[in-house]
Each structure stands twice: as C-alpha cells, then as structure tokens.
C-alpha cells in the first residue's frame, strides 16, 4: 500500500495554471503530471489554492487545567480543520508551563494526538508572576525544545526583569514574546478607552498602555541584541512603533489576531462578553492601520490567540467574564475577508503571514516551506470562493465562544496535510 496523496488541479499560491501535486513519504515528490499509485488518495482541487500549512504562534489549548473548555486533542482538531500544521500553546495553563515537566507533557500529548505539531510556549517567569525568571534554558533543552517564551495573559512589566529575560534569551537563541500591557495603566480595565467606553461606562484600557510597553521593549531588545516578538498588536500606535524599530534594525517581530483585523469596539453596546478579549477590540481606524501594517510586513503574521472559555465564564455580566475568543477555525476566513477580498494581499501574501513568517519566527525548519519538490508536505488546501456560516457548537473546540456566530464568511479549508498525512478533509478530521 502506498501512502500517496494526489492533490489534483490546485493552483499553487493561487497563481498560474492548475497543477497536480503528488505527496508521498511526507514530502512533495512531484509537481506536474506522471504516474500515480492506484491506491493513492485523490484530493480534487479544481478552483482551489494550495498553500503551505499554517503556523499559529499563539493559541491556548487549556491542557493541563481547563480540559472542560479545550484539550490538546480538541484544540489539535480545531487547528487541523483551520488549515494549521503547527501551533504554539501558551504557557498559562494550570499548572503553568514554566518548567520542563509541563512543556514536555504538552509536547508529548501533541505528538500522540498527531493532528498538528503542538509546540509549548514556556513561561518567562515562574508562575507568570513577573517576579523571577523561569528555567528558560532547561525548557529550551528539553524534549519539547521550547523556542518561544511568553507570560501571555500577563505582561512582563518590570523593565529590569524584561531586560534580563531578553539578555538571557540571546544565549539560547529563543524569542521572548510579550503581552504588551502596562498593568498600572489597565487596573480594572474592561474595554478600549475611547468614545464608546465613555458612553457605555466601561473602565478604559488605553492604547498607550500597549504602546508604552512595546516602545520600551523595542529599546530593551535593541540594546540586548535580543529577539522580541510582540503578541496581538491591537493599536495603530503600536504599528508606528514597530515600523520605527524595524527601521532601526531592532530584531522585533509582531503578530495581529484575526479579531483585531475585523471587529471593533462597536460591539461593546450589547455588553455581551463573547466580545471581551485582551487586548480589547479597538476602533475602525485601528483595524484599518493594522490591515495595512500586515500587508506591508510591519506586522509579520496573523496569530489567533485562540482562547476557549466555558459558557459560565461568558454568559455572565461583562466584568465577571474571562477575556478571549475562539480563533483556529475562523482565522483563514477572517484573513480572506479582511486582507484578500480587500485586495491588500494575494494568496502568496497569505502564505507569508499565515505560514512562512510565523515558521521563521519560531525557527521551525519544516513548516512554512516553499511548495516545491522535496519539501515537507505540510499543506493547506483552500477553497477561496466557498462561504460558510459559523456555528460555535459545530466547531471542534469544546468551548463555543466564537464572536462570529451566525456570520457568513468567505474562505474554506478543504484539506490539511501534516507530513503528507491528511489531517482534515472537507471539514472533518481524518
């Protein structure tokens, strides 16, 4: 029995004429016509776009600790259905992934499930408390081989500790990913501080609380010659700072979430916490600037900040609700809506922001690779013209907190291949 998969008649990066792509032994063995094993699995790909499998630098898989909302298995399924072949699981689990035992557990569970490469993100500080460096070296050298460290959910606010983390990281060749939020400026904050929060009485989360940390961290990273990654950029001002820092040669990269590209604080008027997220939804003007910055490469990539939450943590009053929203299965559609349909990016550009750049930032050697013969067959096959209606209960995540409930969105993932194996096909896990 062969393990061949024939992707028949796809357009690579949505460019040129349709071609057949033959996959075997985990790699792309041929692009073009030729012999195919009789038992090869055929993916009919007429009208579809073949891209390198997506890489998500920012997910919350909730295992260990909140398996009632997501597990590595359910989150992996969501990832595979969303076109992802690699995801990075944030450290804010219970217990926190601040040691090699937890990161290795996450790594091994991901391998066992086998639907997507699950890479644990290690905590920067012990218990995410922002007081003392976690054992970055031990985690980096563990089986999981941690390459990204973040206290996401909390900011490494102490400038001295952040400096030390950046300095220390240079010996390990790892990235410090910062959740940029000056905690003193966001005490009790609930929503973007502006005209809408003023009217609706939400305690405000000012843009400057993000921007001041990003500016500070860029300076610290430049000084330490370290690599900084800015999580979930949400404001126009942050985009300006990134542009400035990159022009100076600072080794900084940045991600934006799908929801910060599409949704705005106009959603606040319902007080429905399905729209509560940290950093908060900003203004229309911010979404415009973020889209532009992503198109220009000032923001490197899209990351979901996929954050499952139980119904009781969302179906409550706003302040009691937990921040975060599902994202893995809707990311491609939101990118299609905000970046492709607007003409800001072609599919080559989508490959860059969803796969190539995040793989480079994370240092993954076998993801985000060119679609050429001999390369690893980590692939996403996308139907760019199809549309679908989002239903939270139908998503693979255990939790159902999608802000896109009932919305009709363009862009459907037809199939995902991880090392030549089909992990999802026509919206079903294989």
């Amino acid at each position: 029995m062969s393990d061949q998969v024939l992707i028949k008649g796809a357009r690579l990066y949505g460019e040129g004429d349709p071609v057949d792509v033959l996959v075997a032994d985990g790699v792309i063995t041929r692009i073009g016509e030729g012999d195919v094993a009789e038992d090869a699995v055929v993916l009919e790909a007429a009208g579809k776009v073949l891209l390198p499998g997506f890489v998500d630098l920012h997910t919350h898989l909730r295992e260990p600790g909140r398996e009632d909302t997501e597990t590595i298995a359910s989150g992996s399924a969501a990832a595979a259905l969303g076109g992802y072949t690699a995801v990075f699981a944030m450290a804010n689990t219970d217990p926190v992934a601040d040691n090699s035992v937890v990161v290795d557990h996450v790594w091994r569970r991901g391998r066992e499930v086998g639907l997507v490469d699950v890479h644990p993100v290690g905590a920067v500080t012990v218990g995410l408390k922002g007081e003392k460096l976690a054992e970055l070296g031990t985690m980096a050298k563990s089986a999981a081989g941690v390459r990204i460290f973040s206290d996401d959910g909390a900011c490494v606010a102490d400038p001295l500790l952040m400096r030390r983390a950046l300095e220390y990281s240079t010996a390990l060749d790892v990235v410090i990913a910062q959740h940029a939020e000056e905690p003193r400026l966001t005490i009790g904050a609930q929503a973007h501080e502006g005209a809408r929060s003023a009217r609706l009485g939400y305690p405000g989360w000012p843009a400057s609380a993000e921007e001041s940390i990003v500016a500070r961290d860029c300076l610290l990273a430049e000084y330490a010659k370290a690599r900084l990654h800015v999580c979930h950029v949400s404001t126009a001002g942050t985009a300006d700072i990134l542009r400035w820092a990159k022009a100076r040669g600072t080794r900084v990269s940045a991600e934006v979430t799908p929801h910060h590209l599409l949704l705005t604080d106009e959603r606040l008027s319902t007080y429905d916490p399905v729209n509560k997220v940290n950093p908060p939804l900003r203004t229309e003007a911010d979404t415009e600037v973020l889209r532009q910055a992503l198109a220009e490469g000032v923001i490197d990539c899209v990351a979901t900040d996929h954050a499952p939450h139980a119904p009781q943590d969302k179906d409550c009053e706003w302040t009691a609700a937990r921040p975060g929203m599902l994202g893995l299965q809707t990311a491609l559609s939101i990118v299609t809506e905000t970046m492709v349909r607007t003409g800001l990016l072609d599919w080559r550009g989508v490959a860059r922001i969803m796969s190539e750049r995040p793989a480079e930032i994370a240092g993954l050697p076998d993801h985000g690779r060119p679609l050429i013969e001999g390369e690893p067959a980590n692939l996403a096959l996308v139907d760019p013209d199809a549309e679908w209606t989002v239903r939270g209960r139908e998503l693979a995540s255990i939790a159902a907190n999608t802000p896109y409930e009932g919305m009709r969105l363009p862009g459907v993932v037809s199939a995902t291949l991880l090392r030549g194996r089909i992990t999802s096909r026509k919206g079903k896990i294989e």
Partner: protein
Amino acid sequence: MKHLLATDGLDPAFATAVLDTADELKHTLLGREVRKLPTLRGRTVVTLFYENSTRTRVSFEIAGKWMSADVINVSASSSSVNKGESLRDTALTLSAAGADCVIVRHPASGAAQRLSGWLAETGTVVINAGDGTHEHPTQALLDAATLRERLGSIEGRRVAIVGDVLHSRVARSNIHLLAALGAEVVLVAPPTLLPAGVEGLPVTVSHELDAELPALDAIMMLRVQAERMTGGFFPSAREYSISYGLSEARQKLLPEHAVVLHPGPMLRGMEIASAVADSPASAITEQVRNGVHVRMAVLYHLLAGEGES
C-alpha cells in the same frame, strides 16, 4: 417588553410621560393621610442589590408599596462571583418565583441590560437602579422632575454637572436625559475625572467652575468618593474643594433662580458647603421626595401599561 435600562436612547416622549405621571401622583398623594394607590395590587417587585444602597433601595421600596405592589428586597454579594450563584441564575430564579419586575443594582456596567436579555422570554420587567459606571436612569428622571418643578421647564436650560464624571453613572444618565429634553449640559471637572472620549457625549467641557456659574440654571454636584481622593485623581481634598467645591462664596456667582442638586450622599465641606446644601436654592431633599413619585411613575408605565389604572 419594556425595560428601563438607560436614558441613552430613551424616547423623550416616554421620559416626559413618566415626569407627567410623577407630577400627577405627587399632587394626588399631597396631604393624604393614607398614601397608597391600588394600581399594582397583586404585582411582585423585587429589588436585587449587589451594592450597598440606602436611598435608592428605600425609594424603590416605598414607591412599590405606595402602588400596592408586593416588594421584596434581595441583597446579594457580588464578591463571590466565582463561588456564588451567577447573576443569570439569580435572575431566572427570581423570575420563576414570580417576580413581575426586577430592580437591579450591580457593580458591572451593562448588568441590567444582560439581565433583560436573560429574562427576555419570561415577561419580567427589568429596571436599572445603577450598573457600574454606566447609568442610573431613575436618578436622572427624578433630577429632571425636580428641575422641571423648580424651573418650569428643561428645554433651553443650562445645567452644569460638577465632579467625578468618570466614575459616575448619575452623570451619564443625566447627560443623555437632559440633552434629550433640550437642555445644554456642561461638565466641570479636573481632566483626571472626565472619561477619555468625553467629546463623543452631547456636552461641553470646562475646568473653570467660576467661569460657568453665572450662566447656569442649575448645578449638579457629584459626590467625591473616598477612594478617588487616595487614588491620585487629584492632589488633595483641599485642592479639589478649592477648585471644584460649591462654597458659599461661589454660590453667590450663580443666578438667583439657579437650582443646586446633589444625588447624595453628600460630603459636606468637600464638594458642597453645608450652608449651600441647606440654602433655599438647594433642592436636595426635594430630589429624594420626587424620587419616590418618579419611581412610582416608572413602575406604573412599565408594569401597569397604557389604559390600565
């Protein structure tokens, strides 16, 4: 289903109808020994308060009782959000137990609106008695009733709201209601106590109280909460009082007809001088009296409906 959740977007005709009814009720009950109307006999009204309150809860309770409704008071602790019953379950429980109306006060902005969503299928009416830093619509209605009584009309009048606008649901409700009824509103506060984005509200902003006083028809002083004094919003109580307090000297800059309002509880000597609070210009006790009639009127319009009496 009609609720009273906010004055932002409230139909001015409804607001005026409530004020007219409150006026009628006041005159009907004036001088009566037994101040009880049978209008809401057999209806059950629950006050559900997640924050301490004396004046608002008592005012609603008296309003309900004078309308012959059965009034039940529930005090809940919001500090045990993770341990205790959720707001949603509490609301559904009260509704299932027979509440025709839930009057809710809660520290979260939007809590009353969320409640109205959860109770949409049940027919239970929700009245917002203060949600976080969002709104307190019956306070604005009683303030409007008081202003109308004192000034004869609200349209074209100039009203200053002075103090901690940032954290004040009273201010937000007054801003929208006064604007809807045709008044000009000027906010006077230090920049630290104004919300970012204030320019989106139908107001003008000033930091000079003395400059505003001569043109005012009414001045509404907001309470300065103790935690603001220690929270670095302004340098000291003394400086605040000097800049934004309504002293006797400052009161002299007001036109003779101008009304002084305060939603209470007052900090005498801080935002308002004792002599000003007790002066003929002050309508502070009338506000409390009108509060009962306005809340009776709100209950009437939401629970009794048109055509019934």
